[in-house]
C-alpha cells in the first residue's frame, strides 16, 4: 500500500466514523423530524448543510477542470456565475415565502397553492430530477474509491450506500443535516488547503483569489505559445448571446431545484430562512471563488511540466494518471504511443476530473494532503446524495402515500413508508451508480434547464401574483417543460444532433422555456377561474413574517 492509499484510508475511516456518530446522536421518531428536521436548524448550520447539499462530486472534483481545461478560462464563467447567482433569486424571491408557507416538500406548495394536477407534475419532476442527480453522486463515490484505494467501483459504491443508508434512514432530514454540516467542513478544508499551498508556492501569495491575478499574464503567454486562445479572452468558445442564455438557465434552474428549495423548510423561522441563504452563498462562494484560481494554477503548472518533454522524463503525476487512462494522447490513444518523441500540453488530453484530485501532486504537496482531498471528494458526493434521497423519500411518503393513497395514515405509518422509500431509493441509486446509463452526464447538466422551465416561473408567480390560476400554472409548466425537453432531444448530439434554432445550445434553451412558461401562465390565468378568495388571502399572508391566522390554520390542516 502506497503512502497516498494509506492516508486516504485513514481520512476515509475517520470521517465516516464521525458521520455515523452524528447520525446516531440525531436519530428521529416523527415525520416532522424526518422531513424537515422539525424546522429547528439554526441558520449557520442550515447554510453549511445547503452548501454541502448543493456542492456535489461535480463541483468538488470537476469544476476547476471544466473551467480551466474544457472551457479555457473565461467561458467557464457560465458555471461559476450560473451555479451561484441562483442563490440571489432563492433568497429574495422564494426562501422566506416558502418557509412561511411551511409545509414539507416542494410539491406540497405547488399542490396546495394550485391543484392536484400541478402537484402530480411537481412530484414526477422532483423524483426524476433527483434520481438523475443521485446516480452521478454514487458514480462519484465509486470513482474516488477506485482511484485512491484500488478497490472496484462496485465495492466503492456499496460502501457509500451503506454509510448513507445508516444515517439517512435512521436520522431522516435531521441526521442528514447535521452530517452535512460535518461534510461541509471536511470538503472545504480539503479544497482550501491544497489551493492555499499551491498559490503560496507558485505566486508567493497564500490567498488563491489574489495569487490568481499574478499568473494570468504568464498563463496567457504560455497559451499563445501553444497556439491556444487567450485564457482571459472573451467569447473565444461561446458567443455572447449563448453565454447569457446558459448562465441564466443555470441560475434560474438552481432556484427551481427541489432539493435546494426543501432546505429552507428546515430553517427555524422566516428570518432564519433568509440567514440560511446568506450563510449558504457565503460557504459556497468560498469554494467557487477558489475553483477558478485552482484551475489557472494547475493549468499553468501542467503547461510548464509538459513542454517538449518525453515519456522518459515526464513528471510523476503524469504517470500516475496516464496509468489509469485519464491522460491520453490528443486522439484518445494510450500515451505509450507517444514513444520517445517529445510532446507538449496540446499533444495530450487530460481529463477534467483530475485537476483537483491531482493538484496536490502537481503542486508537489505531501501524501496526507492527497488523502484529505480524497476524503473531501467523498464528503461532497455523499452529502449531495443524501439530500437528494430525502427529496425522493419525502415525495413518495408525503406527497404520494399520505396525500393520495392513505390520508388516514398515522405518524408512525408515514415514517415507516418514508424509511422504506429511502431504502429503495438508495438501492436504485446504487445500481445506477454501478451501471451508469450513458445519458446521465448529459442529463445532469440539462436538469437545470428543465427545472428553470418548469418550477421557477410558477413558484415566483404563485407568491407574487395572487391571481395566478391553477389552470395557468399547470399549462405553463407543461408547455415550458415539454418545449424545453423536445428542443434538448432535437439538438443533443446523442439524440437528434440538430443545429437547432439561432444556434441556441441545449444547455441554454431552459432560459427560453422559462420565458415561455411565464408568458403562458400569465396569459391562461387571465381567462380561467380565479383562485378562491381564501387562497388569495393566504398568498397575501405569506408575504409577512410572524404568526398570521390563515397560515397557521392552513398548517394545522384546517383549511
Amino acid at each position, binding site marked *: 500500500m502506497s503512502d497516498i492509499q494509506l492516508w486516504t484510508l485513514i481520512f476515509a475511516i475517520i470521517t465516516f466514523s464521525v458521520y455515523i456518530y452524528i447520525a446516531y446522536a440525531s436519530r428521529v421518531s416523527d415525520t*416532522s423530524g424526518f422531513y*424537515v428536521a422539525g*424546522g429547528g436548524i439554526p441558520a449557520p448550520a442550515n447554510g453549511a448543510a445547503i452548501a454541502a447539499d448543493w456542492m456535489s462530486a461535480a463541483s468538488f472534483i470537476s469544476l476547476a477542470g471544466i*473551467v480551466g481545461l474544457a472551457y479555457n*478560462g*473565461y467561458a*467557464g*464563467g457560465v458555471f*461559476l*456565475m450560473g451555479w*451561484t*447567482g441562483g*442563490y*440571489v433569486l432563492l*433568497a*429574495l424571491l422564494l426562501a422566506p415565502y416558502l*418557509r*412561511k408557507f*411551511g409545509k*414539507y416538500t416542494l410539491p406540497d406548495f405547488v399542490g396546495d397553492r394550485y391543484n392536484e394536477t400541478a402537484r402530480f407534475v411537481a412530484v414526477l419532476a422532483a423524483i426524476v430530477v433527483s434520481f438523475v442527480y443521485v446516480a452521478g453522486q454514487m458514480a462519484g463515490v465509486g470513482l474516488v474509491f477506485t482511484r485512491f484505494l484500488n478497490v472496484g467501483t462496485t465495492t466503492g459504491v456499496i460502501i457509500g450506500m451503506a454509510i448513507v443508508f445508516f444515517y439517512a434512514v435512521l436520522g431522516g432530514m435531521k441526521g442528514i443535516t447535521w452530517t452535512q454540516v460535518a461534510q461541509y467542513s471536511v470538503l472545504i478544508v480539503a479544497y482550501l488547503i491544497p489551493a492555499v499551498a499551491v498559490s503560496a508556492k507558485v505566486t508567493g501569495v497564500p490567498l488563491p*483569489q*489574489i495569487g*490568481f*491575478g*499574478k499568473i*494570468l*499574464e504568464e498563463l496567457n503567454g504560455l497559451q499563445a505559445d501553444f497556439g491556444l486562445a487567450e485564457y*482571459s479572452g*472573451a*467569447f473565444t468558445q461561446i458567443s*455572447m448571446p449563448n453565454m*447569457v442564455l446558459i*448562465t*441564466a438557465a443555470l*441560475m434560474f434552474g438552481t432556484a427551481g431545484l427541489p432539493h435546494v428549495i426543501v432546505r429552507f*423548510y428546515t430553517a*427555524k*423561522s*422566516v*428570518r432564519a430562512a*433568509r*440567514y440560511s*441563504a*446568506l450563510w449558504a*452563498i*457565503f460557504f459556497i*462562494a468560498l469554494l*467557487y*471563488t477558489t475553483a*477558478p484560481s485552482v484551475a489557472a494554477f494547475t493549468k499553468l503548472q501542467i503547461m510548464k511540466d509538459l513542454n517538449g518533454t518525453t515519456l522518459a522524463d515526464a513528471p510523476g503525476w503524469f504517470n500516475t494518471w496516464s496509468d489509469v487512462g485519464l491522460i491520453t494522447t490528443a486522439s484518445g490513444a494510450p500515451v505509450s504511443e507517444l514513444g520517445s518523441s517529445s510532446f507538449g500540453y496540446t499533444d495530450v488530453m487530460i481529463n477534467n476530473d483530475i485537476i483537483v484530485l491531482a493538484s496536490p501532486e502537481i503542486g508537489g504537496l505531501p501524501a496526507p494532503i492527497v488523502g484529505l482531498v480524497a476524503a473531501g471528494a467523498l464528503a461532497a458526493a455523499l452529502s449531495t446524495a443524501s439530500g437528494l434521497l430525502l427529496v425522493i423519500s419525502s415525495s413518495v411518503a408525503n406527497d404520494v402515500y399520505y396525500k393520495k393513497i392513505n390520508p388516514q395514515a398515522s405518524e408512525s405509518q408515514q415514517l415507516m413508508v418514508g424509511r422504506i422509500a429511502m431504502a429503495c431509493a438508495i438501492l436504485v441509486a446504487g445500481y445506477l451508480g454501478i451501471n451508469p446509463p450513458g445519458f446521465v452526464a448529459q442529463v445532469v447538466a440539462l436538469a437545470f434547464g428543465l427545472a428553470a422551465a418548469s418550477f421557477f416561473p410558477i413558484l415566483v408567480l404563485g407568491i407574487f401574483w395572487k391571481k395566478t390560476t391553477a389552470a395557468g400554472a399547470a399549462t405553463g409548466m407543461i408547455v415550458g417543460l415539454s418545449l424545453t425537453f423536445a428542443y434538448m432531444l432535437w439538438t443533443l448530439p446523442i439524440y437528434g444532433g440538430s443545429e437547432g434554432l439561432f444556434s441556441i445550445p441545449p444547455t441554454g434553451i431552459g432560459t427560453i422555456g422559462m420565458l415561455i412558461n411565464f408568458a403562458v401562465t400569465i396569459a391562461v390565468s387571465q381567462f380561467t377561474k380565479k383562485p378562491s378568495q381564501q387562497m388569495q388571502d393566504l398568498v*397575501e399572508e405569506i*408575504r*409577512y*413574517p*410572524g*404568526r398570521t391566522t390563515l*397560515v397557521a390554520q392552513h*398548517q*394545522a*390542516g384546517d383549511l
Partner: protein
Amino acid sequence: MDDASRQAYWRSNLRLMAVLLTIWALVSFGAGIVFVEPLNEIVIAGFPLGFWFSQQGSIITFVVLIAVYVWRMDKLDAEYGVDEYEQEVHHP
C-alpha cells in the same frame, strides 16, 4: 399589522428587491458578459476587469447582495413590529 401598514411593508420589500436584482443582473450579465470586452481594457492587480467579474467579482457581489437584503429586511421587520421571530410559524 393593519392593511395600510401591510401595503407599506410590502412596497418597501418590493423596492429593495428591485434595486438588488438590478445590481445582480448588471454585475453578472452586464459586467461579466455583455460589457466584458471594454472592461477587459482595464487591468487591476493582474486581472482584466471583465474577466475578473465573470470568474470572481460577480460571486463576491452575490454574497454582498444577500447580506444587504438580510440586513435591510431585519430593519424593516423591526420597523413594522413583525420581529418576534422565535414564536413564529412552526411545523405542525
